[in-house]
């Protein structure tokens, strides 16, 4: 794991796998979008509204996974001071916030016709809204200090503290009674069980795969440009330092 902390090493591996991730993302989207939005059958109670689920569940999956990645990277940054971990966490945050917002909005659009309301303050919806605020707080805090290192540390601590919310979101539908339905996937000793018919589960898996690859592809792109920006900054700084050395103060 520690060898990924070296930016040059990391980028060599990341650049090598990037075409595969991006290609897989394109293929999965090319399959998922027509199947999920047009060719898959409607649901017996929701009718065509079920198609919102493919976007909603995929976004919700990513908002949880990305927060987990941010929290793990923040821990690595705080404990081992890996700058690469900090970069990965910071680059992920806006994407996580976007998918969290997407999950909230698609959920509301589905809730109005199905439940009869856009919003209730049940445990699942409220904890998801808190996750959105954690994302926004993380982004704001990491840019709130003049000294960027202090901002990075403060934001990493916030990310770690907030990571407790992730299992709460996941188990909220089991621990408390909520308006939100229970999970459609149940892991048991006999493997993963689902209450969704295969004809509706396939487009969901395709969409979740496509969303996940999309995130990783964007992450590599963002990290690449962050590292280039850091290189330019360093080159400028040494240029200024060179100037200062050449012209001693009077």
């Amino acid at each position, binding site marked *: 794991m520690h060898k990924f902390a070296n930016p040059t090493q990391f980028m060599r591996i990341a650049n090598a796998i990037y075409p595969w991730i991006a290609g897989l993302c394109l293929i999965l989207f090319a399959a998922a979008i027509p199947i999920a939005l047009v060719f898959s059958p409607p649901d017996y109670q929701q009718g065509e509204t079920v198609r919102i689920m493919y976007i909603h569940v995929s976004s919700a999956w990513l908002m949880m996974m990305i927060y987990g990645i941010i929290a793990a990277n923040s821990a690595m940054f705080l404990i081992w001071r890996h700058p690469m971990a900090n970069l990965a966490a910071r680059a992920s945050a806006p994407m996580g916030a976007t998918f969290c917002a997407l999950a909230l909005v698609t959920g509301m659009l589905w809730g109005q016709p199905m439940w009869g309301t856009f919003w*209730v303050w049940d445990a699942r919806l409220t904890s998801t809204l808190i996750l959105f605020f954690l994302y926004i707080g993380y982004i704001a805090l990491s840019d709130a200090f003049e000294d960027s290192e202090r901002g990075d540390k403060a934001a990493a601590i916030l990310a770690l503290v907030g990571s407790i919310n992730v299992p709460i979101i996941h188990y909220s539908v089991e621990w408390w*009674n909520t308006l939100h339905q229970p999970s459609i996937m149940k892991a048991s000793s006999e493997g993963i069980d689902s209450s969704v018919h295969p004809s509706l589960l396939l487009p969901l898996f395709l969409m979740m795969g496509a969303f996940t690859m999309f995130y990783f592809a964007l992450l590599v792109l963002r990290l690449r440009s962050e590292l280039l920006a850091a290189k330019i900054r360093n080159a400028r700084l040494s240029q200024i330092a060179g100037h200062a050395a050449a012209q001693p103060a009077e």
Partner: protein
Amino acid sequence: MTRKRRRLYFVLLGLLALSGGLALVLTAFEDNIVLFFSPTEVAAKPVCAQRCRIGGLVANGSVVKEGERVSFDVTDTVETVSVKYVGILPDLFREGQGVVAEGKMTEGVFVANNVLAKHDENYMPPEVADALKKSGRWKEGEPVPAAVVH
């Protein structure tokens, strides 16, 4: 102990303490976090003298509609609460399905001013649902037999 080791233990201990504390808080506030009470809880405690929400299944054969006036029973298979409501019902509202009603108890009847439908976690095409009902292997509101999904 190196500094890195120390930081690792500090982070782990911090997370442990934090989740312990939060678990206590969430347990203490359980009554405030649940969205609704079941008919059994309503029967046992006077929780719905003030405004509250009750939730359960719409009892089979209990729905009576007169224009916008609706009355139905909410059951958790142990206790049953009669509900009166005037207004528009959500699309998913029907007998055997989950429902959440907001209002308060007046003279033994729950007068609701808002009714929400609860959606279950079963997703399938209409043909599959029809086939299952015809063969008698499944009724609405029940969990779907695992064999169907695999």
